[in-house]
């Protein structure tokens, strides 16, 4: 018993050190977002600003209200700046709304269609299944520059350029990465279960909804999460399909915010990055809780 406690303690120490290493670059990112402009420096490792007590004020300024022109310690008048959320040019809350709309439409479609296709590729034996699956897997390897312009052309003919449709409609047709992932999980579900259900007269549709889906909740949640992350951070699609700033998504807005002449001030840029990362982190944490804590109901363990 003692050995196992010791090994658990060692494991905890190891994993905590590793996790902190992983967090460090992002800790710097968040730390920089809480500094006033004069404290931002790429020299030296300072996670906190000169006056740590004023972090609340700096956070308020950088993220929201901005800072008016002020006189510094040397008596020189310095220019102020706008906060991220009240920036004149870049409206992050509008971008958030756009991103959320695309996300909801996209993720629902992706999860549904990928699950359905994965079922077809795993739980039904039919001629040509393996060949078509190979083709599907091959589509994962197509680099986007090769097909970008013809795809744009197709959307232009459908009249979808300048709308959200090119960003979420294709998700309703599944995606090889997610189909592949779900297939791997579905293949783990014993065939006897499905055979027995077939013998009982259940149709494929019923088997899918009543047996496969409940047993695959972790995998389905994973697919939803991964696709959410992709939609959240995708900027190439929005860049070429959206033509009006009111339609921009968060990732694209962040690109525009960053690409100002010579670069945006780092504290504001890091604040914007932190804001953009926040909601999707929340989604991840929630998904993880549901995934891990909900395992007891899958029925396969024990």
């Amino acid at each position, binding site marked *: 018993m003692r050995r196992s406690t010791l090994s658990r303690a060692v494991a905890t120490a190891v994993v905590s050190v590793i996790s902190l290493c992983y967090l460090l670059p992002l800790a710097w990112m968040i730390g920089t977002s809480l500094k006033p402009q004069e404290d931002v420096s*790429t020299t030296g490792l300072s996670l906190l600003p000169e006056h740590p007590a004023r972090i609340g004020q700096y956070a308020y300024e950088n993220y929201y209200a901005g800072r008016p022109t002020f006189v510094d310690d040397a008596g020189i*008048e310095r220019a102020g700046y706008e906060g991220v959320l009240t920036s*004149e040019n870049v409206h992050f809350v*509008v971008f958030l709304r756009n991103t959320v709309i695309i996300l909801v439409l996209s993720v629902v479609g992706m999860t549904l269609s990928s699950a359905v296709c994965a079922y077809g590729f795993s739980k039904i034996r039919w001629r040509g299944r393996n060949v078509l699956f190979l083709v599907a897997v091959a589509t994962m390897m197509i680099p986007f520059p090769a097909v970008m312009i013809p795809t744009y052309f197709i959307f232009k003919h459908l009249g979808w350029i300048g709308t959200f449709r090119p960003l979420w409609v294709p998700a309703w047709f599944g995606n090889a990465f997610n189909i592949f992932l779900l297939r791997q999980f579905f293949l783990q579900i014993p065939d006897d279960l499905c055979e027995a259900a077939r013998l009982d007269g259940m149709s494929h549709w019923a088997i899918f909804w009543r047996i496969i889906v409940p047993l695959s909740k972790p995998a389905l949640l994973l697919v939803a999460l991964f696709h959410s992350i992709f939609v959240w951070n995708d900027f190439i699609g929005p860049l070429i399909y959206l033509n*009006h700033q009111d339609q921009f998504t968060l990732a694209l807005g962040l690109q525009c915010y960053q690409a100002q*002449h010579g670069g945006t001030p780092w504290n504001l840029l890091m604040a914007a990055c932190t804001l953009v990362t926040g909601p999707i982190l929340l989604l991840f944490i929630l998904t993880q*809780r549901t995934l891990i804590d909900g395992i007891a109901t899958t029925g396969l363990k024990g």
Partner: protein
Amino acid sequence: MPIPAGASRMPVATRVKHAANTALWVMIVLATVALIAFGPRSTHPLPKDRTVVTYWEKWTDFEGVQMRDLIQQFNQTVGAQKGVYVDYVVTTQIDFKTLVAVAGGNPPDLVGLFPHNVASFAARGALEDLTPRLDAAGIGRDMFVPIYQYGCTYHDRMYAVPLTPWSLALYYNKDLFEEFRDALAAAGVDADRAPATLEELAVYCRVMYREDERGNLTMMAFVPGLPETLGWYWHTWPLWYGGEFWDEDRGRVPISSEPFVRGLQWIRDLTDAFGQNRVLRFESGLANFNSPDNPFMTGTVAMVQQGPWFAHMIQEYAPEINYGVAPFPTGDGSPISYNGQDALAIPVGAAHPDEAWIFIQWLYTAKPIHVRSKAREPQFGYDFAYQNGARVPMPALRPVEWLCWNHYKNSPLAEPEPAFLATHPNPAIAVHERLARSSFAKTDPRIPDWTEIHEEFKAAYRDIWGSPVPVRERLKDCQRSVDTLVDLARRRQERYGLEFP
């Protein structure tokens, strides 16, 4: 539905966790619905009764705000009269987006391109030839500053108009010069003026530096690789020795010719004088360009090669610096300068080219106007400007000059408004203007595949800057690859029955 194996035996803790999770999910769903239903949406509704001209531009920040203000002026005056509404859309990676849009058959009506885009887009038939329109509007070639007019030309036709042009000069820190006065005098140069030749610049560099106790450099006179690794204007070095990017007679890019070798050898001599590794390390420690930590602002670097917008940055981040502006030192001291301009063009296939032209025409031919712009901070004045240190009323300027004035750039007009120069927010604009209008002014060549050739050159430069490879040999290798690229490019153009460049 199969009953979960241990459902009835779930402990309270797990049930509470499940309940908490469900509650969190419900809250997220409600928040999402609320955001979609009640969240903020369109902030700039488009008018239904006018032709909408889409204008894609890359400017955000104060430059974007000023352009928007200018466009608003147009929309309220001439635009209202003629039923035109210009819609300003900011985008990143504008050349990429424009290429995809034009290729996909959905281009904007107006697009603000980078200087190097004009030749390649024009050569591929993506931009409308504006020469007939310019002639009809009475805007002759001689209306523009020659070097900027050339920058928007391809095969002698104008495919864009210069929007906000600039020229490069040397910005130097007079206080640092003062500090090293004795050392400079001992080396035979004068601390009261900027270096005029590259030889002198090398002397300044060798004399003006500081290092810490471990031998790391903490200050240098000049680093070619600013604002980022390699800098923005690294390829201009051959120009200072009288080199040209395109050899007309032999139809090649003379990368291995003497001016190129001398230019890059100058850089190699600089890094060798201090030790390549030390310089690289120093350079990598230089902070973000657009911040109060800009190396010039903090006195970490004494001289930089920048355009007229730099005065704005100095005013914003380090107004206390005592600086001067001079022509960039050249091989023999002649006023060779490097220039460029943002270009405004109408893509082929645009939905409303005529209306787009109305805007361009207004920019260049409208009478001088007053436009109040929100972007000017109180200390720089909403309604006033400075002339010789004294406050004067804001002058009326032609729209394009108004924009350049506010962007701290040069004027594209051969005959600028006198008030433009007199009240320009960059006190040293005269230096930039003189350089741009001199016959020694240079810019990038109008070669359609210049970007690809440029990248080869950049790779060679990067190697020379960052590794000990011998300069002449590396440029010879580069010449070989560049010649291949030029041949391929020529063949490609010939297939369409066109000539190269």
